[in-house]
């Protein structure tokens, strides 16, 4: 492919990031390193919407420019645990009402990243910017998702656009198949452990290979979500039939239109990198060699094989978050906990990522299985992921969690140790009372 970018002729293809940001900026092409003015298709915010609204008003405006592109959930501290949180929620509700923002989701609907996928509010090839660092999540469907600051979100509300630097890209080729009991979470922790917390700094991380195509959609969602912990700006997985079907059906339901035409429309807008695109780095991972992996305190890249930390006493086990609070995660936990009990001295907290997940888990019997084993359920949302409420560990306690961050104090208690693992490992650890291998739980 020959093209002229910034006055120089180049003879190579384009990465996903180059194509997606050129599209969002209305340019014929864009090259890594170039700064473009991009118009996001979706602007995501959550409980921080009230703080952004204050910055927005300081700009001196009355009305947001893009009410139909703004999507808001209340998810970070729900239902309001204190009067201050309640006040914040009230301000968010008043703002969305005043501004005519229709895509607003109340307390209990679920975590923003999960909900906007379920509602098919984001589509392949689109640009979603969010005032949340895990907006990288939307790469599971082949969208460009990136986190921005609050001042920047106010700027997007005001003008509908934001400047973005087109990132360089890393290619991760996943070959082979994950072994028994090994999940996408292990793959991510392994990769972050190898490359480090800045291993994908500022870059767009593209995943390729049959190891990705084999994964369920829910497993795929884990990957770009976790890539925020590699320092990445965004991550991308190739959208396939499964993605198009999932989104087309949900979009058709919401818009009361037919699935077939929705699917054609979605498919036509998907973006794939060229075969001869240039990458800053290429890594090949053989999925069959990945072990059960745990991130140890207090950094996500402090990843170790589970066998090295097995036996560590666990006080609280937590299954939930936008990373691993979906139906297959609850099903995996139920399969391990069926007919067993959570160990004495250990508690198991489960917070479904959304109301839809919760409903499905009830319908399919997983919720009853888990409750029979002694698990306790919380309202769909972020739960204790960032220490707001509902499951803060005590000083000196150990929590094993399915979340994406284990920084010191992340769950509201600086004097607690947080380990990150897959839902199966967390469930097995709840049964054993110590960090345990799910394949060894009988």
């Amino acid at each position, binding site marked *: 492919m020959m093209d002229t970018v910034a006055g120089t002729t180049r003879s190579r293809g384009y990465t996903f990031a180059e194509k997606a940001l050129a599209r969002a900026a209305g340019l014929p092409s864009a090259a890594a390193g170039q700064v473009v003015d991009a118009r996001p298709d979706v602007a995501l915010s959550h409980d921080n919407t009230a703080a952004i609204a204050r910055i927005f008003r300081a*700009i001196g405006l009355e009305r947001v420019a893009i009410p139909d592109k703004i999507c808001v959930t209340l998810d970070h501290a729900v239902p309001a645990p204190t009067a201050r949180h309640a006040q914040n929620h009230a301000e968010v509700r008043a703002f969305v009402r005043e501004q005519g923002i229709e895509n607003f989701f109340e307390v209990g609907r679920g975590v923003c990243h999960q909900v906007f996928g379920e509602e098919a509010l984001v589509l392949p090839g689109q640009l979603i910017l969010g005032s949340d660092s895990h907006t990288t999540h939307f790469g599971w469907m082949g969208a460009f998702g990136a986190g921005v600051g609050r001042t920047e979100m106010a700027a997007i509300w005001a*003008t509908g656009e934001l400047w973005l630097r087109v990132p360089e890209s890393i290619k991760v080729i996943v070959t082979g198949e994950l072994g028994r009991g090994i999940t996408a979470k292990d793959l991510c922790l392994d990769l972050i452990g190898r490359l480090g917390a800045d291993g994908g700094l500022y870059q767009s991380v593209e995943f390729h290979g049959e190891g990705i195509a084999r994964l369920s959609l829910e497993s795929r969602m884990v990957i770009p979500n976790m890539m925020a912990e590699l320092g990445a700006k965004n991550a991308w997985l190739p959208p396939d039939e499964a993605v198009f079907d999932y989104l087309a059906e949900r979009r058709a339901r919401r818009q009361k239109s037919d699935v077939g035409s929705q699917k054609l429309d979605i498919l036509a807008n998907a973006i794939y990198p060229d075969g001869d695109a240039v990458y800053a780095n290429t890594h090949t991972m053989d999925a069959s060699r990945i072990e059960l992996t745990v991130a140890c305190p207090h950094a996500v890249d402090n990843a170790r094989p589970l066998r090295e930390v097995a036996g560590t006493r666990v006080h609280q086990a937590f299954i939930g978050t936008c990373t691993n609070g979906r139906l297959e995660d609850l099903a995996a936990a139920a399969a391990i906990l069926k007919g067993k009990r959570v160990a004495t001295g250990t508690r198991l907290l489960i917070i479904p990522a959304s109301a839809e997940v919760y409903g499905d888990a009830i319908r399919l019997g997983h919720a009853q299985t888990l409750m029979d084993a002694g698990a306790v359920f919380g309202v769909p949302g972020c739960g204790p992921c960032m220490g707001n409420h509902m499951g803060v560990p005590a000083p000196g306690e150990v929590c094993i969690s399915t979340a994406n961050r284990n920084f010191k104090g992340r769950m509201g208690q600086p004097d607690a140790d947080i380990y990150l693992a897959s839902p199966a490992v967390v469930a097995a650890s709840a049964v054993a009372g110590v960090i345990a291998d799910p394949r060894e739980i009988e």
Partner: protein
Amino acid sequence: MMVGKVWKYGDGVNTDVIFPGKYTYTLKEPSEIAAHALEDLDPNFAREARAGDVIVAGRNWGNGSSREQAVTALKYRGIAAVVAKSFARIYFRNGINQGLLLVTCPEAVDAAQAGDMIEIGLPASLIRLGGREFPFPPLSPTALGIIEAGGLVQHIRRKLGLASTEAVIVSSGE
């Protein structure tokens, strides 16, 4: 075209040494913030830097915290630009949005020595140094406009016809 003296630093300079965390919640005045710029990296810098000087550094300048003072400390100290091999992502955005010119140009970094005079040409996107020229990826009109306006909030006010010469102070709060 801006011309300034080079202050040269290495790879991986993090936000803690650019602006120590212990001052994050106590210092509010620009002059106080500027007085601690690069304190734990180069104690001479805050004393001796002159308005218009340029920092030239290696990879991953500004990694670590998202604190905006790591940008504003340099801006308040009068630094015209930072030229680096690469920037940490949030630092880069904070820089432009706070009106500090950040230039990614590894070749110029390798060629520059402390004390050299460096010229940065905008919008030509060209560095001149020791008789050599180094092009760098162009900034968009928006990014340039933000820098010229003195930051993102002021830029938007200007763009929307709400311009005033007063700086608008906003805090993203918590």
